């Protein structure tokens, strides 16, 4: 990987949680990169560590239980894990911004949305109050909020869920960050509003030349927005590749099964109803991970050795990497 335009480079990130129930390896050795202007999606089920990966990059791992125990996170070739908190505060919002799933709880209910955007601009830019307000209003306009001048004086509770998420995007983009981390940005929204927000994000991404790190469980959303995909399972990357190779040529049994398990709209009308392919078993408990491949207990193609042997990522070429002994042995043959 000798790209010149790697913006964010995460190497061997390990974020563990130390709790009364034991140690949870929420993120267990993640290495990936994010290019300039790229949209990378991290996909996985609840508890797979995708949100913790995002929070680790932001330096916002929940304290005191969570701890980054290992790894490096390079932003423009600088390891931001070495930065003191004050410097991280300068980076958050300015270079890396984040939007969350729940737009209601992520906004301050006691401040107008306009002043919440201005505050962000004042924190990171040398501007006067008046300039920052004007910029806030223009940000609201950019996220297509009607009559932004008036809306800027509204409080969050006066806005609908979709509007609030637009405001969150306006806040996040107000300082023109290099990276926008979006953690399930449309999960709490209705389908028609989701379509609006995704459309808006993709449009703004081009205007601002921002890279997006999208965290989601929705494979449909991923197929629409992402250029590259990382599939996570139990704190590890199990497959990585561009959107076409993941959707059209998935190699890991989990990715394959996941894609087959979701019903596709129109499938029954066109092909009749067949039972959906199930992934048996349950999502693993991070406190009780054993050795070997953590998908092994649910895997249809598991071999005896899968239970014992930890397997690394195999490079299949073209940036497609997969963590599975099946692929490894095939490649070695």
């Amino acid at each position: 990987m000798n790209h010149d335009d790697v913006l964010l480079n995460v190497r061997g990130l390990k974020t563990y949680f130390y709790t009364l129930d034991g140690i949870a390896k929420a993120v267990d050795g993640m290495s990936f990169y994010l290019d300039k202007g790229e949209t990378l999606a991290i996909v996985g089920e609840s508890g797979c560590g995708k949100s913790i990966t995002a929070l680790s990059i932001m330096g916002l791992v929940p304290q005191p239980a969570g701890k980054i125990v290992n790894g490096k996170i390079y932003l423009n070739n600088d390891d931001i894990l070495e930065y003191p908190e004050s410097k991280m505060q300068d980076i958050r919002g300015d270079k890396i911004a984040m939007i969350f799933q729940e737009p209601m709880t992520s906004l301050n209910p006691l401040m107008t949305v306009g002043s919440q955007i201005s505050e962000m601009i004042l924190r990171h830019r040398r501007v006067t109050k008046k300039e920052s307000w004007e910029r806030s209003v223009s940000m609201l306009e950019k996220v297509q909020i009607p009559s932004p001048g008036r809306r800027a004086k509204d409080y969050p509770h006066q806005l609908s869920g979709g509007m609030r998420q637009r405001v969150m995007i306006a806040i996040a983009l107000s300082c023109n960050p290099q990276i926008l981390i979006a953690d399930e940005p449309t999960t709490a929204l209705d389908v028609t509003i989701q379509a609006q927000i995704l459309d808006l994000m993709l449009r703004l991404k081009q205007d601002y030349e921002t890279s997006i790190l999208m965290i989601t469980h929705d494979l449909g959303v991923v197929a629409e927005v992402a250029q590259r995909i990382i599939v996570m399972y139990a704190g590890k990357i199990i497959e990585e590749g561009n959107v076409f190779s993941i959707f059209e040529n998935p190699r890991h049994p989990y990715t394959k099964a996941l894609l087959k398990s979701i019903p596709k709209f129109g499938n029954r009308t066109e092909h009749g109803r067949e039972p959906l392919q199930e992934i048996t078993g349950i999502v693993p408990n991070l406190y009780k991970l054993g050795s070997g491949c953590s998908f092994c207990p649910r895997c249809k193609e598991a071999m005896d050795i899968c239970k014992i042997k930890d397997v690394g990522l195999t490079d299949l070429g073209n940036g497609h990497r997969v963590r599975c002994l099946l692929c490894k042995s095939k490649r070695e043959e």
Partner: protein
Amino acid sequence: MKDTIYKKILRRKNLVVGIIITLAVVFMAIFAPLMSPYHPIDDADLMVSDQPPSIEFLFGTDEQGRDILSRVIYGARVSLSIGLLSQAMNTVIGVVLGLLAGFMGKWWDDIIMGLTNIMLSIPSLVFALAIMALLGPGLINVFLALGFTNWAYTCRITRSQVLSSQELNFVKAAQALGYGKIRIMFTQILPNIVGPILVIGTLGVAGAILIEAGLSFLGLGTQPPTPSWGGMLATAREQLFTSPWISIFPGLAIFITVLGLNLLGDGWRDYMDPRISRQ
């Protein structure tokens, strides 16, 4: 499973300390006759009055020559029984009224909540004093005064839990399964609010012990010669500087018992709250 419950309890230090202190006080109250070296009332000997702590009298003696250690041990009986009984009464009153208010709604709710607000606006010591003034001093009257004054919190919590749990899906499911209102109340809602009610009860016992001590100190509670911590403090007041041990030990007994109960209540609440226990 059992093993992890013990472990979880052992990890909460305040809960462990609370349990130990409370058990010790309860033990002391139950086995008072076996534990105390002297009789708390009959073994008065004016020849040894106002003795400082010694091997013979570990906590010293009072102005009538009674062993303070024995009186403190016996005092636990009064304090604990008043605390437990009156709080039990408060809990029953509070839960019944709270259930009525939450379940019946309408004017039941208005009247009960109005009453609760009145109760909450008067300090319980003042309220208890007023009742004592009406009924006259005495142990039974203390019990009555405390048993009717401290149910407001329990009532409020019960009511709010009833109201919020009606929105819970398992309560809706029970309705859809044809459970009657009363059955829902007793099988679905009550078991789920026992925890918070017991926590409030534990804290309430501590409060009642303090108020009982206060009343006895003012001469309205337990009457001499029955040993009670508050009463002992009252009589020791005049000798605070000449014979401080007469007041220090019953004072410490109140302090430690109330502390223990509060630690128990707080620790229990933390233990039950999954958000805190996760970390």
